[in-house]
C-alpha cells in the first residue's frame, strides 16, 4: 500500500485519504480499477487500450455533482489593507484527486476522489447571486505546500481611499488553472490579482504561475478554459 503522488501511476494499491484505490493488470492491455471505502467497493472500472494512468489534482467542483464552476474562499483571518496599498498572501484552494487515463494525449477521467466533505454556499441573493463551492482557508505569508490542497498566491490591491477588510475571494474554476509538481503532493494555481474598487466590491484577475518546475493539468471537459481570460466580479461583498 502506497501513498499517492501526482503524475503517472504504477500498478498496486494506494491510500487517498479515506479511500483505497487498486490498479491491477488483468491481462494484455486490460486493467481493473477499484475504489474502496473501508472494505466496500464504491467504484469499479475496466480499462482497455490505455497508454498511461495518472493521479491529477482537479478543481473541487466536480463532486458530488457539478452544480457550479465558482469557488468562494472565506478567510479564517480577515485582511485589513490600507488605502492605495498592495500586498500579497497565500491561500489554500481545495482540490480533488482525479484519475486520468491517456491514449495518444487523449484522456478520459476515470474517477474523481473527493479529499473532503464538500460544502456549497450562496454568494449574493437568490435571484442575482451565484452558487459556489465553499471553503474556509487559512492565510499564509510564504509558500507552504499542503497535502490535498493547492496553494494560490493572492495579490490584493486596494484602489480606494479608505481602509478595506477582505474576508473572502470568489474564483471561477473555468479561468483558474491548476499545476502540480510531478512525483510530489504539491499543487498550485496561477497568481490571482484582486483589485478592490470599493469596500464591498472587487474584481479577480488570473495571472501566471508563481513557481517553476510545475506542470499544468489537462482540464476536464466541464471546465475548459475560455480563450479570453475574463475577470471575476465580486459584487456582493469582499
Amino acid at each position: 500500500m502506497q501513498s499517492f503522488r501526482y503524475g503517472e501511476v504504477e500498478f498496486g494499491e494506494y491510500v487517498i485519504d479515506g479511500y483505497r484505490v487498486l490498479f491491477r493488470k488483468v491481462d494484455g492491455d486490460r486493467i481493473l480499477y477499484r475504489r474502496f471505502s473501508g472494505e466496500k467497493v464504491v467504484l469499479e472500472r475496466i480499462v482497455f487500450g490505455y497508454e498511461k494512468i495518472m493521479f491529477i489534482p482537479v478543481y473541487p467542483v466536480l463532486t458530488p455533482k457539478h452544480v457550479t464552476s465558482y469557488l468562494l474562499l472565506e478567510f479564517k483571518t480577515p485582511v485589513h489593507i490600507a488605502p492605495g496599498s498592495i500586498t500579497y498572501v497565500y491561500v489554500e484552494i481545495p482540490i480533488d484527486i482525479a484519475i486520468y487515463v491517456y491514449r495518444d494525449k487523449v484522456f478520459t477521467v476515470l474517477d474523481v476522489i473527493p479529499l473532503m466533505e464538500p460544502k456549497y454556499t450562496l454568494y449574493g441573493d437568490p435571484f442575482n447571486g451565484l452558487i459556489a463551492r465553499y471553503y474556509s482557508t487559512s492565510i499564509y505569508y510564504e509558500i507552504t505546500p499542503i497535502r490535498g490542497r493547492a496553494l494560490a498566491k493572492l495579490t490584493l490591491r486596494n484602489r480606494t481611499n479608505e481602509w478595506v477588510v477582505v474576508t473572502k475571494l470568489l474564483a471561477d474554476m473555468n479561468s483558474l488553472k491548476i499545476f502540480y509538481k510531478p512525483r510530489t503532493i504539491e499543487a498550485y494555481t496561477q497568481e490571482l490579482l484582486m483589485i478592490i474598487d470599493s469596500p464591498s466590491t472587487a474584481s479577480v484577475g488570473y495571472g501566471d504561475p508563481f513557481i517553476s518546475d510545475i506542470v499544468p493539468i489537462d482540464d476536464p471537459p466541464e471546465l475548459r478554459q475560455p480563450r479570453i481570460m475574463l475577470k471575476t466580479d465580486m459584487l456582493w461583498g469582499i
Partner: protein
Amino acid sequence: MQLHFIFNETTLGFEWLYHIDWIRVLIALAVFFTGIFISLLIRRIIYRVSIKIMPKDISSTLSKVIYYVLVIIVVISTFGVLGVDLTGFIIAGGVLGIILGFALQSVTSNFVSGLFLFWERPLKIGDLVEIDGQIGRVVDISIMSTKIVGLDGVLIRIPNEKVFQAIINNPSKTIARRIDFVVGISYRSDAEKAYNVIRDIVLKHPFVLVYPEPEIFVEELGDSSVNIRVRVWVPTSEWYNVRKELLWKIKKALDQAGIEIPYPQHDLWFRNPLEIRLKKS
C-alpha cells in the same frame, strides 16, 4: 397623357382604352411593386433580427403577419392611386373583420398572449413550473400554446392565453431555494439532543448552503410534541433530492438516538366517573 393617337375609328370595341389614364396606371404599378418589394425586405429584416432573440416559429409567424399587413396597405394604396373608390371594400372588410374577429377570438388571444409571454419570459424550456395547478417541466413554448411534461410523465398542453393569465410558480428562476419543515419530538425526549442530531445532519449535507445559514429552532410547544422548525437553503436544482434525503436521514438519526416522534395525543376528561363493565364469557 392619353394615347388617342394610337387608335383610330377602326378599333371598334376598344374605346374604353381612350379613357384610361396610363400615367396613373404606371404610377399604381410602381407603387404596387415597390410596396411589395419593401414589404418583402421588411419581412426578411424582421425575421433575421427576431430569430436572434426569439424562437424560430415565433419569428416566422411575426414576420409573416407584418408582411401580410404591409401587403394589404400596399394594395389599398395602389387602388387609391388608381382612383378606385374603396368605401365598399372597407365596409365589406370591416364586416369580414368583425366576423373573423369573433370566429378567431381565442386563436388571436393565444397568439397575442404567446408574444407577450415571449417578451416577458416568465418561463423557459427546461424550467420546472406550476401553471394553473399543473406541475411539470417546460418542453415547448410555441406561438399558440405551452407544453409541459408533468411529474408523472404526461404531456400537458396549456393554451398561451391561460398561461398568460395564470399565476406561474417558477422556482427555476432563482438559483437557491429554501426547504422548510417541522420535526415534532415527544415531551419525554431530550430536546437538546434532538436539536444536535438534526443540526449534524443538516450541516453535513453538501448541498445545504453555508450561507444563508441554516435555521433550526423550537417553533412551538405543541399539544403533542415539541415542534422544531428547520429552514435551509439549497441550490434550486437539488431542492427535491435534498429534501428527500434530509427528511429520511433525520428520521433515521432520531430513531438511532432514541428520540421519539410522537403521534398526536388527546387527554379526554369525563364529566362523570367512567364505569367499565367486564362481561364474563
